[in-house]
């Protein structure tokens, strides 16, 4: 479903992502972990076509995101770290705009918009201008928009920022249900507990390189025996443990 093949991306002299090769099958929830500046957001921006790799290729459902971006985007839903909306559109108008962009038939679009509004509890403010929304409300609307066309691949960059505990629960349940239905999720996060709870596999990036790829169970088995919590394992891998407790 998602395939990174020897992907490298540079910013001037700095290599942000180095020779990343990764394949994520249908129905898997993959969590990308790593410290700040590790290359997580760059990887995600390349996956959604905002950045082009200096070397290598990225494919979504078989479509090259650089050579054929529109076909690739048709299969993707994207929730960025900073929600972007049109201030002078209402939440419902924004959802209609996205539905039209994906060429959805009117009746189906109407049903899906109602479904997402109910699912993310947007009903109370769906007809207000989005300039009046709080960060959490904006994030919920972006989630709704990204799932409107039932994408094959959902890309999430720090998805829980700004969400209240109830919304976090809704998102977690929804992701679990959608992955069961065959949707692939590629998520970057700092929240280790969330990765532990939800991810089928995790990848740990450090300074642009994938240091670890596997399940949480495999991760536990690979790192030092005395490290008994996932946090400690993570700190060991990323080299930021510093001997702290």
């Amino acid at each position, binding site marked *: 479903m998602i395939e990174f093949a020897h992907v490298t*991306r*540079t*910013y*001037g*002299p*700095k290599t942000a992502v180095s020779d990343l090769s990764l394949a994520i099958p249908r129905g898997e929830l993959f969590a990308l972990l790593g410290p700040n500046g590790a290359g997580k957001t760059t990887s995600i*921006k390349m996956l*959604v*076509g*905002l*950045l*082009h790799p200096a070397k290598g290729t990225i494919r979504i459902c078989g479509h090259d995101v*650089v050579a054929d*971006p*529109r*076909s690739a*985007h*048709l*299969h*993707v839903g*994207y929730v*960025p770290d*900073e929600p*972007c909306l*049109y201030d*002078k*559109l209402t939440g419902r*108008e924004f959802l209609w*705009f*996205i539905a*039209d*962009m*994906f*060429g*959805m*038939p009117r009746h*189906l679009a109407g*049903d*899906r918009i109602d*479904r997402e509004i109910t*699912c993310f509890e947007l009903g109370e403010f769906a007809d207000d*201008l989005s300039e009046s929304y709080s960060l959490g409300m904006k994030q919920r609307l972006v989630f709704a928009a990204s799932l409107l*066309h*039932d*994408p*094959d691949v959902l890309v999430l960059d720090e998805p829980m920022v700004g969400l209240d505990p109830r919304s976090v629960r809704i998102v977690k349940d929804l992701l679990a249900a*959608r992955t069961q*239905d*065959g*949707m692939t999720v590629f998520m970057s996060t700092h929240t280790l507990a969330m990765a532990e709870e939800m991810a089928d596999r995790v990848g740990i990036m450090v300074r642009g390189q994938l240091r670890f790829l596997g399940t949480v169970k495999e991760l536990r088995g690979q790192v030092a025996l005395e490290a008994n919590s996932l946090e400690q394992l993570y700190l060991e891998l990323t080299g930021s443990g510093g001997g702290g407790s």
Partner: protein
Amino acid sequence: MIGRAAPGESIRLIGLEEEARLFLRLRISLVWQAVRSMVTGSRLRLSLVIVLSGLFWGALYGLFLEAFTFLDVLHADVVPLLFNAFFSSLMVMLVFSAGILLYGGLYCSPEARLLLTLPVRAETIFGHKFREAMWFSSWGFVLLGSPMLVAYGVVRDSAWPYYALLLPFMLAFVIIPAGLGGICCLLLVGWLPRLRLHLFTACVTLACLGALWFGWTLVTEPEADTMSAAWFERAFSRLRITEQKLLPSWWLASGLLEAARTDRSGRFDGTSLAEAVKFLSLLVANALMVQLVAGGLARVAYRRGYSHLAGEVPAKRRRRAGWFDRLLVGSSSSPGRPLRLLLVKDLRIFRRDISQWSQFLIFFGLLGLYFVNLRSFNYHNTYASMIGFLNLAVVGLILSTFTTRFVYPMISLEGRRFWILGLLPVDRDQIVWSKFLFSFVGGVVPCSVLVFLSDCMLGLPWRLIAIHEFCCLLLCAGLSGIAVGLGARMPDLRESSPSKISSGFGGTLCLVLSSLFIMLVVVVAAMPTHLFLLSRTLGPTLMAADGLLASAGGPWGTALSMLVVALAGLAATVIPMRLGLRSFRDLEA
């Protein structure tokens, strides 16, 4: 819950026309909502904009009507030259402004980031942002050009086809330079990422130098010769460079001149109208061609350029002005230190925000250039004094746009970071006073230098120079007081964009009050001088009036006017500041 349908059944890639319709609907919704919120939320601002635009349009129409009537009688042959010069310089400006606006819209806006992750064509995104940039860069042309062209039609007694063709001509014309600006922008970002800034800076510098040189050669004639028929002849001969048949500005000028032509009976001339339509077709064809080329280029270059630009590494900042900041802060732990630290913070933000200092530099630089050239116009004493006061008003008005645009939003922007300042051991009053000091010192230095320059170039006596400098000092204090005081009284803590803060109700009020204050100060200060000069020009036949005017314009009149000016300055500084300080003390972030 509705079951998950197979993607192939529910979604598809939409066609180019569908994309265009979708973005048109989006644009209409955005404009409609913006107009609605302006009508409901900013009535004062909207009314002011409409009234002032109407006044501006009317004044320009009157001016052009007079000018064309004069030219029609004596120099009808120079009209094509003037049209060509006007439209060609406008074309250059439109290329630059559309290019800069498109750069911001295509490569730096959050909207572009959203659209690039959707299944939409790159050329559609370009087209969407292109129309936006074209509108923002060319509305001034419509406001400035329409009174001129309507006035020309009235003077030439043109028939209705001329007026009907005005809008199509303008629209077809603006697409060409805007499209060229877009093409330049795409090429620069897509293929010359590393050279982009340097190339752009070089182009702008060259264009500015060229314009300055051209302006200089027009005005630096021997003093006695200025404004004479020979001077006009020489100036116009230099403008002939703009009459190039390959330039769209020539097609526009020629088309409009043909459309305005009438036969002896005052009806439109069929042959001329056909010529006009031919020129319009030429413009439309080229506008479509430019759009086609720009769209094609966007398809190839936009996504690639966006990615390239994101890979650019900003140059490391050098601490060139660090010594100045350290000098300002000082090493002592005196009670004024927090105030100075706040000042240094604002100074650093000003230095690092190119939009602030570049506008400051451009406006005051142009004003300086104009003042330096004042000596070329050999003014009579009465005119020199009047122009001195008008220049003082212009300096004040330019400063008031800066205080409204940049100083008024400062407290609102500080309010958003209130948790930083709120936790520091800094008195809230000091925050407000630091803004006032920043604005006052930043304004008084360039303004007093400019006013002094203007007065010296006009050859005004020391008494008038002292009066102007005194007024300038009070204007800077009053304008700073109004901007900072109102900014603290009506902060907008939710908005992060300074331009949006300054364009709200408070910002509009600040600009209106500032303008009224400037008018009051300048009129009151100018009155005694002009009464005095008037008394000297009335002659012996009006002795009674002469005596009255002379006494009003004498030392007592001047002293009284200065007292009124000082009181107005004091009121403009103290009243808003007191209101602002009281309000800011009680502010809950």
